[in-house]
């Protein structure tokens, strides 16, 4: 006998589950494989509480196997298979090991005991000791290889485990109401595990409108995209039927169609197996593929960090460029202001000195006072130059401090525009020496001979004037009066002349002082400007240097980040290749799985 195709697919799926270290996925598949090896068709009956699941099973096997009633509910699955003579066993968990999947023990019981043991009070708690009940009874349908499993209410924890091992599922819902949202959720969950589903509509005997409910349910299932046959049945009618031997009643119970459906299932185990293997394998493969796909987009550890670092460095670089430009602009602006301010200051100071000079020479005779005046002017100018220079230094400090503050954000090395270099420059600065001591201007002197000559010239007019006047009186031209007047006129002329000469000397001295101050101003402002320019240049260079230094640091950082990113990308590429290889493998198995069986389609039969 050839190995069936589904077995290969199942083994491949189990293999790939093991390779991906997912024993949790492999385990149910292995259980399924073991179950399939038994060559039986497991039909699991699922539904909410008190929809008539157990009653349906009882009616199907025409025996009271499962406990039924409104007071009771089924605590554990009841597995009903074929046996030539009725047998039954209870599988119970070792009490101290917990109810789930722990070591369990089997205990043989009578078939009639099972119904009692599988019905517990609705609100009973702690009834989980029973893991499973197994019943074997002689029925033709069961002999064909069909195994019926009655389950607890659908919200019970173990139901989905049981469904995972199913070849087909009968979803039970009473015809007294339409499928509720909760029931539709159950159908959808079950459908993912086992695609062969039929909806059994029970209790149609007491539901006058069961046909409408059946139609609505069909529509709801179709809307949910689930292909499922709907079988309206009445277990009550069926269980009444054998006593009444009423063929019509048996037909009305709807069990004919349901049994036919089950026979069909039992007759085509291969198709069912393929279908359920397909569903389970697809689910398992999806669960394998999901994390792979997710991990494919997760970046290599550290890469994200490096990328962030790289971006940050880029950003810092851009910021630095902007800031460096702004530092330079600030510096240039400050220097321009400084130049104007300093020049004005110097001009102001020299003007005030000149005004004082004017006032001084309005009274003083430069002839005698020039040496004192020269000392005074020299000291005044030195003082003005010194104050101006001090102020300049203060301004330098202030500008330097401002730029330093701006740069603080960059933790730049200090030792830039500190005072030392500037002080050195300033110390060499000697504007007064450059201009020299105020030179004494050449001033005309008023010598005694000149005075004599001037006096004589002035006396001439007086002698003549008064001599002529007195001659009228018969006096000689030269007489005492005319001589006296001549002397008076001489004195006056000498006095006038010496006053005029003093004013001329003063004007000369003023002009000389003015010239000296101008010279001083010119040379000092030249020196100052040179100094400012030198300072500007050095500050500019230092800023440039800082910016370069900072830029180098950032660029190095960015480069290292970039390297990490590049390495990460390479690694990512490798991993993507690995994952896509794995996904491809999964896809191969998937396509093999898909080729196993076509999707089931409901036949939408209606009982007569």
């Amino acid at each position, binding site marked *: 006998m050839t190995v069936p195709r589904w077995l290969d697919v199942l083994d491949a799926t189990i293999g790939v589950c093991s390779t991906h270290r997912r024993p949790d996925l492999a385990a149910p598949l292995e259980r399924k494989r073991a179950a399939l090896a038994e060559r039986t068709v497991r039909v699991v009956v699922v539904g909410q509480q008190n929809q008539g699941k157990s009653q349906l099973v009882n009616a199907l096997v025409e025996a009271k196997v499962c406990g039924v009633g409104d007071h009771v509910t089924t605590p554990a699955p009841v597995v009903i298979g074929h046996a030539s003579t009725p047998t039954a066993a209870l599988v119970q968990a070792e009490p101290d090991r917990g109810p789930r999947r722990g070591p369990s023990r089997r205990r043989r019981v009578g078939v009639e005991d099972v119904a009692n043991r599988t019905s517990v009070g609705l609100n009973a708690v702690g009834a989980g000791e029973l893991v499973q009940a197994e019943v074997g009874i002689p029925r033709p349908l069961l002999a064909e290889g069909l195994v019926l499993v009655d389950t607890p209410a659908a919200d019970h924890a173990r139901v989905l485990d049981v469904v995972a091992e199913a070849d087909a599922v009968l979803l039970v819902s009473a015809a007294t*109401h339409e499928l509720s949202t909760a029931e539709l959720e159950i159908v959808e969950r079950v459908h993912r595990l086992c695609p062969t589903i039929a909806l059994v509509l029970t209790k149609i005997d*007491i539901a*006058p409108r069961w046909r409408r409910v059946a139609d609505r349910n069909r529509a709801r299932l179709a809307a949910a995209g689930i292909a499922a046959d709907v079988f309206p049945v009445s277990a009550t009618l069926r269980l009444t039927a054998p006593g009444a031997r009423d063929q019509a009643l048996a037909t*009305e119970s709807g069990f004919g169609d349901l049994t036919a459906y089950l026979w069909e299932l039992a007759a085509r185990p291969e198709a069912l197996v393929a279908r359920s293997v397909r569903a389970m394998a697809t689910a398992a493969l999806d669960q394998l593929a999901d994390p792979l796909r997710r991990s494919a987009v997760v970046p290599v550890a550290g890469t994200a960090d490096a990328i962030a670092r790289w971006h940050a460095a880029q950003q810092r670089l851009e910021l630095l460029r902007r800031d460096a430009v702004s530092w330079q602009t600030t510096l240039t602006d400050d220097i321009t202001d400084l130049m104007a301010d300093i020049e004005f200051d110097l001009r102001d100071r020299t003007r005030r000195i000149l005004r004082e000079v004017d006032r001084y020479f309005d009274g003083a005779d430069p002839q005698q006072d020039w040496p004192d005046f020269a000392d005074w002017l020299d000291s005044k100018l030195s003082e003005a130059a010194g104050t101006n220079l001090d102020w300049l230094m203060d301004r330098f400090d202030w500008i330097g401090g401002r730029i330093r503050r701006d740069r603080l954000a960059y933790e730049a090395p200090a030792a830039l525009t500190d005072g030392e270099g500037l002080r050195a420059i300033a110390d060499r600065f000697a504007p007064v020496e450059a201009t020299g001591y105020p030179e004494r201007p050449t001033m005309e002197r008023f010598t005694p001979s000149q005075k004599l000559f001037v006096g004589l010239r002035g006396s001439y007019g007086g002698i003549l004037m008064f001599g002529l006047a007195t001659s009228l009186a018969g006096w000689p031209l030269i007489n005492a009066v005319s001589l006296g007047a001549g002397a008076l006129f001489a004195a006056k002329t000498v006095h006038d002349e010496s006053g005029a000469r003093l004013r001329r000397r003063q004007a000369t001295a003023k002009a000389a002082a003015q010239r000296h101050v101008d010279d001083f101003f010119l040379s000092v402002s030249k020196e100052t400007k040179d100094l400012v320019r030198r300072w500007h240049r050095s500050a500019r260079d230092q800023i440039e240097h800082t910016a370069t230094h900072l830029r180098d640091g950032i660029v190095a950082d960015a480069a290292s980040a970039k390297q990490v990113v590049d390495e990460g990308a390479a690694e990512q590429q490798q991993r993507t290749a690995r994952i896509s290889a794995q996904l491809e493998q999964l896809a191969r198995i998937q396509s093999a799985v898909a080729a196993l069986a076509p999707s089931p389609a409901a036949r939408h039969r209606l009982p007569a």
Partner: protein
Amino acid sequence: MSELLSRVGALLARATEVYRHDPRAAGWLGRHTAALAGPLRIAVVGPPGAGASTLISALVGEAVAPLPDCPMWTTWYVAGSTPSATAHLADSPPRRLPAERRVGRPWLDLSGLTGGPVEKLTLEWPVRGLRGMALIDLAPDVAADPRRAAAEADAVIHLTAGPTAADPRTLRALGDSPIAATGLSTVVALGRADEAGGGRIDALTVAKQLARQHRRDPRMWTLCQDVVAVSGLLGLAGRTLSEDEVAALGAIALAPRAELDVHLLSADRFTAADFPLQQPVRLRRLLLDRLGLFGLRLCTTLIRQGFTSHAALCAQLVARSGLVELRDAITRSLTDRADVLRARTALHALHALLRNEPADPGLAAELDRVVAGAHEFTELRLLAALHTGQVELPDEITEEAHRLLGGAGSTTAERLGLPDDTDPAELRAVAAGQLRRWQWFAADDEWTNSSRRAADVVVRSCSTLLAADVRW
């Protein structure tokens, strides 16, 4: 109006004064002030198809719900002198609609109803069954949201989809609602009791046993006040079956037993063409709709047992449907405590308002004072604490404390566990005896603090009983 209710009324009046400049808050307070004076508002809540409308009709005693042509609106059923209906629209004043009784059912003229969506419809119906309460059939979208349902009602009848569907887990979802927070204002009705046991003849008995089981389940104690199995369908049939219908049932019951049983096996068979009696299919369908298959089985059995008259049969149906028990439960757990429940809703509403839009700290303090000072709330809190086991009393007197606190009914006689017609003098004597007894318990050194505090509360309840007795 009780003292508590007047205190709450005064509090609401003060709040209205504080919030007079806020139209929304004022409207909200106005609604609650009006509700305080109105009947107890009881919402019937259940999953779609559980039969809330049928149950309301059964409680009213006439087939009033659902209103014809009123799709999916929240409907209030209140007692009135003449049939009348008022539509409350979302964005225009309430509008009166022409209404009258036609063939035992309400008929409304909706033609004049234009404008915004209908928020709720109030049907006034001249019927005794509605005295003292307003039954609310919630629109499906409101019923799905416990908080909105809570804003509408003082109390809730939680109707389950089937007799076995009352699972504490599903009920716990109700706990989200502030009014049902401790189950104080909830009665659980196990719906469709006639479908228990696959509609066998003992279905109602089985359903009642189930209700008893639930009632005894400690997990249900915090979720509701009572659990009752009820079949709205049979109850409504019992209240509304006509003489003709009873006659038709009588004819069916007289058919040969063997032949009849075959046709009562399923709904299809009952309406099948080969029915032994000359009754039109339409009549049989009508009877099936009115009674269900179980109802038909029950009626024929009852008629064979001798309940042949219309009155006797209907009385039997009502008695067996569980409607009487439900009414008792409503009276005992809800309407008898109407004042407390209404006060509670109003205080909840005020609390919510103060939390969302704090305005006056004095008002919040006043609210706290009213809540803390109301002995009724203290009693309810202690009852809940006793149920949940937060407070423990010796077993032999827990039941007594429960009764004295009003857990089994709030009249003096019920609290003392005496028949209703007991002589007042005897009531006084028993109450005084209880007072002394519990004073002694409250002073017992061997009890824990919490137990002694609980005993103190019982003492206060006893003295309130005596004081009330004096007032009467």
